[in-house]
């Protein structure tokens, strides 16, 4: 009964105490001759509730923490505002003090023209605080300001008329494809494995395979074992069953590239390539999970979003494999193949892997990506 009473006390004093303002974000959209600019002010406290800006958990958001989190802030905000016909690009950042606290100022631009009644989808804070609103002020030259209150709980685009189908939720399939295609370390690892797949090792050195089917079976085996392995760890990490810190995972991925490339030059694994690929795939899966965490999956449809992201990864991977194998297969009979494609390619991979390893363990910036 003690517990019941303590709860009762809380309910009784509820009425008159409330008065602080609720969670609002402020959006200023301006139509310029050459496109639109958007300024979006989001309370740091709201961002912390959504994506944990306060990484050390001491309740104090320092400039260092905010700076480090800025890519996450943009990655969180950008897909949650869709203006029909406009693709937004980041165009600046800042901080503002308002009466209820500090706000992150995000600036975006797009070379598009607003319609008379632009259809706008807004989903900021949707799963975090359904009482949140986006207060949008649209300014066009020669016209008065147009005000809109954007409600993140509404699914359909908001705005009078103009029923344009703007996708409110980011496509996780798309994100998955994008992630593997632009995740150069994963691509390089795959390429290392594929370089030798159109050849076979003989005591006299590398010899080209005669027929494509001879290459396809081992490639299928390698890609499948990589896929199964990274799906396992991606699933485990995304659901929070197993987590490994990124200071370990990111350098470890670089090591997998170096080791796979060395194996091309000097046999290390011989018949156990499938097993080693599986083991390395487990490590890459944790890397994918890190990217997934930055996307802030919807908690409601989590499993579905995870599946989409993984399918996207596999589709992207399949595309890379098809293009690479096709190219390598046509090149395989060239006499320079063993020396330049396998030798040169693997050496480049070792150098890149080593630079990534150095970057990821020391924080130095050596490579543009």
């Amino acid at each position: 009964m003690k517990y019941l009473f303590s709860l009762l006390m809380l309910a009784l004093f509820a009425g008159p105490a409330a008065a602080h303002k609720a969670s609002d974000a402020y959006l200023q959209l301006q139509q310029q001759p050459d496109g639109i600019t958007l300024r979006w002010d989001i309370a740091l406290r709201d961002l912390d509730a959504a994506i944990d800006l306060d990484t050390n958990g001491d309740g104090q958001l320092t400039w260092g923490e905010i700076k480090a989190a800025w890519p996450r802030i943009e990655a969180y905000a950008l897909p949650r505002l869709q203006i029909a016909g406009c693709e937004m690009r980041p165009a600046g950042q800042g901080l503002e003090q308002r009466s209820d606290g500090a706000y992150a100022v995000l600036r975006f631009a797009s070379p598009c023209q607003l319609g008379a009644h632009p259809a706008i989808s807004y989903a900021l804070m949707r799963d975090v605080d359904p009482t949140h609103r986006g207060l949008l002020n649209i300014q066009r030259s020669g016209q008065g300001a147009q005000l809109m209150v954007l409600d993140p709980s509404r699914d359909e685009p908001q705005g009078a008329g103009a029923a344009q189908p703007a996708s409110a939720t980011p496509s996780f399939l798309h994100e998955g494809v994008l992630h593997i295609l632009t995740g150069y370390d994963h691509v390089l690892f795959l390429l290392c494995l594929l370089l030798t797949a159109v050849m076979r090792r003989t005591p006299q050195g590398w010899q080209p395979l005669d027929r494509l089917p001879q290459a396809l079976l081992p490639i299928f085996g390698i890609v499948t074992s990589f896929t199964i392995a990274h799906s396992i760890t991606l699933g485990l990490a995304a659901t929070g069953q197993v987590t490994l810190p990124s200071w370990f995972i990111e350098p470890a991925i670089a090591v997998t590239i170096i080791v796979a490339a060395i194996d091309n030059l000097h046999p290390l694994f011989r018949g156990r390539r499938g097993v080693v690929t599986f083991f390395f795939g487990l490590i890459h899966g944790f890397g994918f999970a890190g990217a997934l965490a930055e996307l802030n999956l919807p908690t409601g449809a989590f499993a579905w979003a995870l599946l989409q992201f993984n399918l996207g990864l596999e589709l992207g991977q399949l595309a890379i494999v098809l293009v690479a194998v096709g190219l390598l297969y046509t090149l395989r009979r060239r006499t320079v193949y063993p020396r330049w494609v396998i030798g040169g390619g693997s050496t480049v991979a070792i150098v890149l892997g080593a630079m990534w390893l150095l970057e990821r363990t020391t924080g130095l910036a050596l490579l543009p990506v």
Partner: protein
Amino acid sequence: MQLPLRHLLFAAMLLAALLCAAFAPAQATPITPTSDEQVIEVIPGGAGRAEERRLKRALSRQPQDAKLAVQLARRYMAEARASGDPRPAGQALAALKPWPDPATAPIDVLLMQATVQQYLHDFDGAAALLQQLLARDPAQPQAWLTLATIRRVQGLYAESDGGCNRLAALRVDLYAAACRAENDALRGRYEPARKDLQVLLANPSLDGDSRNWLLTTLAELEELAGRPEAADAAYRSALAASDDAYTRTAYADLLITLHREADALALLRDQPRTDAVLLRVAIAGTRAKSPGAARDAAEMRERIAQANLRPEARGVHAREQSMFALQVEAQPAHALDLARLNLRSQREPIDLRIFAQAARAAGQPAALQELDKLRQDIGLQDSRLAEATR
């Protein structure tokens, strides 16, 4: 002749600078950090934050876990009440979102949803949820008590009585008795209500929070009965039993009406500057012409302006905004509009008093008649209101 002129010019510039500092609308001032260590924002929640984050992560993995969701929502609500900040209340709603259907939602979830809605001043929504909950399981004292409280705030005393009676039937004696005494006091049955509360207070095993609650109820009764000295004593005993923001602001309101602004300012000086506290500080300071009053008023004005950028905010905060408009801005007509808007949702004695003060200041006898009609419909007997409408 040149020197005095320069002095005068300097003095004028200084004055202008001070005025600018006091009245500058600090709507949005850019922050330019100077080092990585600079603290830009403090996240409220203090020591409980780690546990809150742990719960949040656990819930994001199992969003369908009702027990976890209610546990997290309860933490958020405690934080919202402690800080006077509705953001955690919104986050509590998010935790409870997987159960949108009151017909199937677990009872604890429904109760929590209703509590959050009440906090966010959606009284009709909260009452509807509680009624559905109680139709499914009438043996829920907490739900009956919250419903009785909401109906009282809405000025529906008969329905509030119904809730009090159900508490009595469930043998939650302390709460049933206090619930009835509060309704009795509102109807002007001061003497029996006072006796009932005193009987409850005579129990030596009462904990501090319960004692504070009963004494605050008693103080409000004495205000209705037109006995400010007794109300003053009851508020002071309540604070001695357990110190909390609600009691301090209610006591400050009494002190302000008694023209004891300095005491009101002293009472609120070291309190967190929630809107409720800042409003009273600005009112007391303005009336007492205290040195910091202009700055406090400017800060409150700015908070109101920012909150009102959201259209529905004016309705939710109409009580506070009406008090500010009348007692700080001296805009009785505007204050009366806000007081009228406020009466649509809240009908506690303070809400009727604010309306009466604004109507009198605006010189609107018709509005006073309108108010007296409403008072009779509700069945409220408030000696201070009788004074104001006379």
